[in-house]
């Protein structure tokens, strides 16, 4: 479904990721592991079109998407849920969600249906639908960010560190929701530092280290891998 081959991204002279190869099949939940600055977010930005790769190709459902404008990429079915829960803080919860359905703005009925689905998935958002998004707690903001991403009816969802800065109990709920979204038919590419929790729900994973992929394999393989255990699980 998604194929990155030999992708490198540079910020000026500094190269943030080098020669990355990633493939994601339809229906999979794939995780990118790595510490801060390893290149996970840069990879996401390259896929979503915010950053142009300097070399390599990115194809989605058989057609190349590198070099396309970000809004065209969202239209083709990839949505990015950015790190640190970026929302529109002055807009209400409901307005934030409606903005998420921007690419389907001409299909009112579909947007309303997606809105109901988002409220079903996160009932707390319905209770707070008229509150300013900036007034929500961290966990609620993350739910809103995910709910907003779902509003575009993505085929592939890029989730950048959804567990960052959240209480352990909330993190657990968050991963359950991600698993549910995946089971309901959305392919998910997840970037995480919380390796143990992420590998428990993922099918496969890639491990980043300073801009390159050093280990890849199924979740079970990665959980058993010594370097992964030492670096990310602490056992």
């Amino acid at each position: 479904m998604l194929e990155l081959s030999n992708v490198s991204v540079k910020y000026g002279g500094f190269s943030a990721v080098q020669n990355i190869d990633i493939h994601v099949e339809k229906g999979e939940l794939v995780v990118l592991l790595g510490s801060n600055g390893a290149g996970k977010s840069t990879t996401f930005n390259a896929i979503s079109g915010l950053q142009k790769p300097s070399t390599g190709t990115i194809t989605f459902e058989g057609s190349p998407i590198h070099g396309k404008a970000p809004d065209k990429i969202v239209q083709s079915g990839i949505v990015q849920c950015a790190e640190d829960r970026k929302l529109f803080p002055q807009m209400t919860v409901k307005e934030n969600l409606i903005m998420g359905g921007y690419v389907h703005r001409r299909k009112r009925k579909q947007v309303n249906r997606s809105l109901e689905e988002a409220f079903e998935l996160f009932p707390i958002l319905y209770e707070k639908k008229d509150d300013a998004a900036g007034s929500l707690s961290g966990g609620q903001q993350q739910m809103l960010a995910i709910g907003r991403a779902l509003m575009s009816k993505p085929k592939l969802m890029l989730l950048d560190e959804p567990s960052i800065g959240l209480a352990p109990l909330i993190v657990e709920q968050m991963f359950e929701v991600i698993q549910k979204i995946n089971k309901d038919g959305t392919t998910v590419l997840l970037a995480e530092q919380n390796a143990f929790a992420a590998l428990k729900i993922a099918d496969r994973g890639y491990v980043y280290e300073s801009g390159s992929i050093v280990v890849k394999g199924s979740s079970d393989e990665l959980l058993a891998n010594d370097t992964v255990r030492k670096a990310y699980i602490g056992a």
Partner: protein
Amino acid sequence: MGSLLKNRGWVIGALAVAILFPFVLPNAYFLHILTLAFIWMIAVYGLNLLAGYTGYLSLAHAGFFAIGAYALGLLTVKTEINYWLALVLACLITSAIGAVVGLVALRTREHFFAIYTLCVGYIIYLVIDKWDGLTGGVRGLIGIPVPSNIGPLSFETPLSQYYLVLFFLIFTVLVMYRIVHSLTGRTFIAIRNSEDLAQTIGISTMKNKLLVFVLSTFFAGLAGALYASFIRFIGPDIGYITIIFDLLTYLLVGGIGTLAGPIVGTFLIVAVSQSLQFLQDYRMLIFGPLLTLLIIFYPRGIVGAYYDWRMKHTAKKVKRTRKEQRYFESETVDAEKKVKEG
């Protein structure tokens, strides 16, 4: 977001005052000043949509104001076409030039956008000032006709011009209200918030920025055209840099990014600067420090400060009722306990 319903009292009040004013205080001087203020308000609304809601501070708007004024002036004086046709054409010409400038200018952001548009504004002024053959250069353009009659309505008197400009101001406010409270308006706000984020949810930022730039130059052009037919003489000065800073001051004092800001700010500054007329240019000694204080303590202007105050006020009210509720609940629980124990 202040909804029109919540502010219904303010809106009806302001409208009633504006409509009844000429009858209560039939003073030609006041009427002239107010008509001018209304014209500035229309231009400030245009600037507000771009700078306030979308976050792109354009300093070229005095230039677009002048383009609107000169387009109307030249069309009516040199080609003698119908006034209303000329008014529409003047707005369209301004928007078209706005689209061309926007295509280039919107590739820059923040400070660079402001500096770039400042230069564009100055170039427009220079072109008007130096192109003697077309614009009359420093001598300006005289003999611009008043708006021609629509059926029995004539616009010969200052009073009728006052109502004409008021009509266009109300039209502008209604259009702004519709835009700001639509998905398009929220798209502009989303771009102001974060362009990257706007892009990741599928917004074509360039398309929307161009749309808002053209819309905002349209209103600058409309204001310019109305100015030309009201004053009936225009010189290159109306495109000069000081005009844009006047407009910007009106916007900042009233409240950037608010719907009522342009009216409040323009009215206040025009009124104060008229009543301090006797101080001549020393007025600026008062304005400067006042403006600085306002920006430091109320960055969203008077209207923004009012909104903040009201929000705090209602938050306090909610807190109080909640407290009372809790008190009441605990009392009933105590009472129930006593009943059980007894």
